């Protein structure tokens, strides 16, 4: 099992290396270390959201409201920043995480207690969250000159050669790698999605586990919401419109099974990086915008086909000894 995971991730790494090679033929400066760090930084929000989404998908759910949660939380912290410009940024970050968690818990409660299919729940809350932004602002934008300098400075502040935004993504990758592999909650996510019946017999509350998955996804989306609006220095209703699909695509490319139970943090990281590299490379390799869409879509399908092939090799040998006996 472990070997299989390693090989799938190795496959993605090879794909990324090939991708970088092809891009460098057309635009050599792209593979300069400073530019690659820039690409990583630009992909950081996607990495964060992909980790949250992966946890939700592991439990056989899906969270389509991540981008709307990001936009709503971003708008809320922007409005808080306007109302109280002196508020320390640590408080803003805390508000963002708490608010995002609440929105995620709302999804989780509906899925857990009312047993509504997650795709329906989050499709609904996606629209509701965007609607709330409109109600809060009447469609007005919060612009860079209304945000305090400290508010805008955090994601791009330099810390040992990397922007804080990148460090947050790295920290999340490390933290959730540990949570997913070394804690009972992390293993419960796999169990709840991999085989809900067996998980129930093992004493895992599947609904509650799904609730926590949504809460974590919401917390990450909230934090990313602050990072997003402060990075682009603008907050409005359509911030990150359609981004939820990019996040799901990153997970799928990263080998997360949409049926639940299979996936890893490094996989989500690589899936996000793959899409991030394409998104950053297409503008510099000078390709028609219509081809850009086709290339992005094609890359997703190829990755999914590769994943499906990888899944197929996974034989279900239940009785190892019996097999050897024959």
């Amino acid at each position, binding site marked *: 099992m472990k070997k299989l995971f390693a090989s799938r991730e190795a496959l993605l790494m090879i794909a990324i290396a090939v991708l970088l090679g092809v891009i460098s033929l057309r635009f050599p400066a792209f593979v300069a270390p400073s530019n690659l760090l820039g690409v990583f930084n630009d992909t950081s929000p996607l990495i964060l959201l992909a980790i949250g989404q992966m946890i939700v998908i592991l439990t056989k759910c899906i969270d389509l409201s991540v981008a709307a949660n990001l936009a709503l939380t971003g708008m809320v912290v922007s409005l808080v920043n306007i109302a109280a410009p002196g508020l320390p940024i640590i408080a803003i970050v805390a508000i963002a995480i708490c608010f995002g968690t609440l929105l995620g818990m709302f999804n989780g409660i509906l899925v857990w207690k009312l047993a509504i299919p997650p795709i329906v729940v989050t499709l609904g809350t996606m629209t509701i969250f965007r609607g709330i932004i409109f109600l809060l602002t009447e469609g007005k934008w919060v612009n860079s000159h209304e945000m305090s300098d400290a508010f805008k400075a955090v994601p791009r502040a330099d810390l040992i050669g990397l922007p804080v935004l990148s460090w947050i993504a790295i920290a999340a990758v490390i933290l959730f790698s540990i949570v997913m592999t070394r804690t009972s909650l992390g293993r419960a996510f796999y169990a709840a999605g991999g085989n809900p019946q067996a998980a129930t017999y093992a004493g895992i509350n599947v609904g509650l586990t799904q609730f926590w998955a949504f809460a974590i996804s919401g917390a990450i989306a909230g934090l990313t919401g602050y990072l997003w609006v402060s990075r*682009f220095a603008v907050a409005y209703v359509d911030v990150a419109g359609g981004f939820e699909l990019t996040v799901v695509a990153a997970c799928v490319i990263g080998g997360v099974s949409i049926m639940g139970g299979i996936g890893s943090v490094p996989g989500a990281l690589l899936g996000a990086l793959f899409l991030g590299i394409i998104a950053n490379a297409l503008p510099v390799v000078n390709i028609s915008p219509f081809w850009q869409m086709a290339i992005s879509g094609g890359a997703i399908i190829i990755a999914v086909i590769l994943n499906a092939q990888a899944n197929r090799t996974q034989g279900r040998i239940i009785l190892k000894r019996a097999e050897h006996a024959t």
Partner: protein
Amino acid sequence: MKRRTFTSLVAGLSIAAGMMGSTAMAQDNMRIALVVKALGIGFFEAAAEGAEEAAAELGGVEIIYTGPTDTTAEGQIEVINSLIAQRVDAIAISANDPDAVVPALKRAMDRGITVISWDSGVSEEGRQMHLNPSSTPLIGNTILKLAADHMPDGGDVAILSASATATNQNAWIAAAEEALPNYSGVNLVATVYGDDLSDKSYREAQGLMASHPNLKAIIAPTTVGILAACQAVTDSGKIGEINVTGLGLPSEMAGCVDSGATESFAIWNPIDLGYSATMIAHSLATGTAAGPGAEIPMGRMGSVTLDDTGTAAMADPFTYDSSNIDQFKSIF
């Protein structure tokens, strides 16, 4: 008998007085109604300010600034009906729907009320003329001129648009390309599309800077794009090297102008628009004929000539820079 005569006399007198009063008022004070999409929108408040300016200049003109509380055609129809009942002399409307308000406006014209549309137009049969804030060729030329003005030695410019299929943006870009030969030394090196998404526009702007090292200006004829490009230029420390310009709103662009990433940008001036609409309404109400080819004066804004559809374009988009941004950023 005597008493009844007295009452009827009083009644008759008061009616006469009332009628005389209203005729006298119509002669003394022309009442022009400025009907907007909805009340409480900064852009239209500014237009009303321009209308008042025109009224003061003309003298004897009273401006009725009105509109529904939300941007619906039904709300505007109610407003129009009440204006007909008040027997205003002219209605200048920015319509929420080009067709839905036509019957109400036709009724107004049947009653001898001058009807024009401005900003957001009404179908031809529902108004005497329509005033566009600007025209495609004027906008295309302006966005290019904004970039050229700040590059005396010429150089490379690139356009960051919305989506590749956006009709408005494509028309403006085509117009800018047509105007390109008039600006010697200015090379348009690329046109890229940010889909009106902050993150994609930001990335495209970064891509432009990476693939065109000699880039002097990024022109973004879209509010999302110009902000994202401004942020990308700021983050890469290229303020002063690369000028971000295009079409934006002063309230959104104030930060970019303050930081110096944007020298100047353009958008139609709502004050001028309200002023011109009022001037035209006044002119038509006092007897100037509207029709294809008609030339209508609009005070300090010069005059406009109507085309075949009774439409005219007011002027070049208005340019905003550090000298006037503080005045306008609170307006719209």
